[in-house]
């Protein structure tokens, strides 16, 4: 299909291959081992769960992007009319970058036990994420009112679709962000709070990365 998809697939295959060779060459029928040295990964379950979730939604976004590229391909159909993208997307991108930076700041503040900084950073991160979502809605409105708007044009359809899917994932993240804030302000279970700040931050960075890719795709086509 597309070279990029192929490359990503190959890369994944290599990584998985290395993992497999490391782990799956044991001869379990021979080993006379004491059980202490072997066991599951010493990583919090939530973290492993989040990475598994990343694998799943990476597949989702990759498939949306593949569908986009295949639909553009004139061999498939020839009714794709490039549209001009709302300028506010640039602003939104900046807002999302700030949001992600703020979350990173929150994580650092947590590590250095700086409670005040942590609260401010979390608040900034969340508010800028909300602002991003608002900005995306404005972009939707702008496109709706522009002369390019024709829902039967796949470029328009995909614009709404991709931004919506990305936005929905961010909204899901806002739920976790809310829980994290609640814990931070209550400050009861420090250990768990730490983990959720870390995971929230990683998720934010992930969605920023996805947005860069989607935005690049939208701009370049």
């Amino acid at each position, binding site marked *: 299909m597309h070279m990029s998809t192929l490359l990503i697939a190959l890369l994944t295959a290599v990584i998985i291959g290395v993992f497999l060779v490391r782990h*799956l060459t*044991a001869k379990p029928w021979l080993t*006379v081992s004491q059980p202490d040295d072997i066991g599951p990964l010493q990583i*919090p379950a939530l973290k492993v769960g989040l990475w*598994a979730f990343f694998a799943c939604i990476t597949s989702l976004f990759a498939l949306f992007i593949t569908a986009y590229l295949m*639909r553009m391909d004139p061999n498939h159909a020839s009714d794709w009319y490039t549209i001009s993208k709302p300028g506010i997307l640039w602003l939104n991108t900046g807002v999302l970058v700030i949001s992600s930076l703020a979350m990173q700041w929150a994580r650092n503040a947590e590590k250095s036990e700086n409670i005040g900084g942590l609260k401010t950073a979390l608040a900034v991160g969340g508010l800028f994420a909300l602002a991003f979502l608002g900005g995306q809605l404005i972009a939707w409105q702008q496109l709706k009112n522009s002369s390019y708007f024709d829902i039967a044009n796949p470029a328009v359809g995909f614009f709404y679709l991709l931004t919506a899917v990305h936005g929905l994932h961010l909204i899901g993240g806002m739920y976790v962000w809310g829980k994290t804030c609640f814990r931070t302000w209550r400050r009861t279970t420090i250990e768990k709070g730490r983990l959720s700040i870390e995971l929230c931050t990683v998720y934010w960075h992930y969605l920023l990365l996805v947005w860069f890719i989607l935005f690049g795709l939208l701009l370049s086509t």
Partner: protein
Amino acid sequence: MAYVAIADRDHEHHLHDPQTFITKYIWSQDHKVIAIQYGITAISVGVLAMILSAMMRLQLAFPDVFSFITPNNYYQFVTMHGMIMVIYLLTALFLGGFGNFLIPLMCGARDMVFPYVNMLSFWVYLLSVIILMASFFVPGGPTGAGWTLYPPQSILPGTPGTDWGILFMLISLAVFIVAFTMGGLNYVTTVLQARCRGMTLMRMPLSVWGIFVATILGLLAFPALLVSAVMMILDKTIGTSFFIPAVLSMGESLDHLGGSPILFQHLFWFFGHPEVYIVALPAFGIISDLISTHARKNIFGYRMMVWAIVAIGALSFVVWAHHMYVSGMNPYFGFFFATTTLIIAIPTAIKVYNWVLTLWQGNIRFTVPMMFAIGFIFTFTHGGLTGLFLGNVTVDLPLSDTYFVVGHFHMVMGVSPVLAVFGAIYHWFPKISGRMFNETLGKWHFWLTFLGTYSIYLPMHYLGILGVPRRYYANGITDFIPESAQTMNVGITIAALLVAVVQIIFFVNIIWSLRNGKKADSNPWGATTLEWQTPDTPPKHGNWGPELPVVYRWAYDYSVPGQSLDFIPQTEPHHGHDSVDDEDKDKK
């Protein structure tokens, strides 16, 4: 690093002990209860799908008799039957049912790592089933687009259910995928994180391996179905044209200028082929464990079996377009996909050989689960071989959309997984319920089902070679189909009705045994794996009592020379003379 099992680490201690009836049996977070909830729901819709198939068979055998089955109804039955069987029965039962029950027990965990999400997974699954059932009652009825839902016909007038049925179907699928994802993240994380001390990946029973890899496939492949469902919903509701090409519908040209139906097919089959293995891999794993246990022999080539599961899982993502040969494609693509399809036969064949070699000189006990396992080897090999035919472009073209295909996929992913399901239910029933089932009834159930399904599907291959098309309400009179084909159709229908009725034996046996069966002791088959070593049968909430089990060996120490018993549980430490054996083995 000092080892602390996940479940015993303070901050991850999730076990909420259930207090009331509701939290214990309904709103439950216990993986065993959730497994049973999944199982009962899945089997209930499965029965419905079977009734639909009986109606289709009646229509095919006696085309002019049943006035209440209209051509539109027939399409709707085909579609709902296919979709329910593949997704709502088999996927849900293998992963939500057996995955839930077996993973924590076989890995030595107290529960799934995210019990709350696990519980939600079931309720969201139930919601998807309710939405699907609701589509029977909406104006126009359920969709009749075929389980493949190919656009444009699935959403344009002409096909039954294009007003509401298709929407309900797509929404139900999307909801199912959400449910599956919640469950799937649990299964993967539990296998990676919550294994007990000593349970290395390579000591896991093959059932867990099959379910684990199948779940990974699901997490990566279901998104493709979600993408196509979402895009189709938008095409249907707000008039985008992702899939709908420039088309005349009912004599009028629609607004669409050129969507791509082929794009849908790529997305659908990028999900659809791995889906076959989502159903097959758990069955492979379960069959391996049944065969090894009931032949009192270690599984032949354990490591090879694991590698084969992984290899099949990986390869299943690069064969999808063998379902699209008739849609037309670049000949090089056709060549590529035919080649990958044939390559996937290699690890699959390895598995079949290894099952047979495990049986070889085993101390075979013809218990009911063992019979189903051996039956599986037959039907699966059979379906696999006809798959090799269909994987070749030139052979597929004339056979595609005939009864040959119907025969093929029912053998490989209809009958075979169902036999694995029955074998598994009989095998684990004593652990689930604490009672034994009735052997005699079980054997009757096996023979009638096995011979019955064979007499349904074997003749279908022949019909297919004659050219009898699939998804036809009635064949009418054609030159190339001899009249005798209709006689064969009658025969098939009689067999199908018989098989349907025979399932009553199964339900009677299960329900009767729940109350009146002989009390089962904790390890009636003499099995090595952890679920048979629980302190209570059925296992209580938390599975293991105060102490988690510790694993010292792999799951297949059957008939080890020099031992008094013909099995050694995984929890049994190595003793002096035992390790001498091991050194012996080392030298070989």
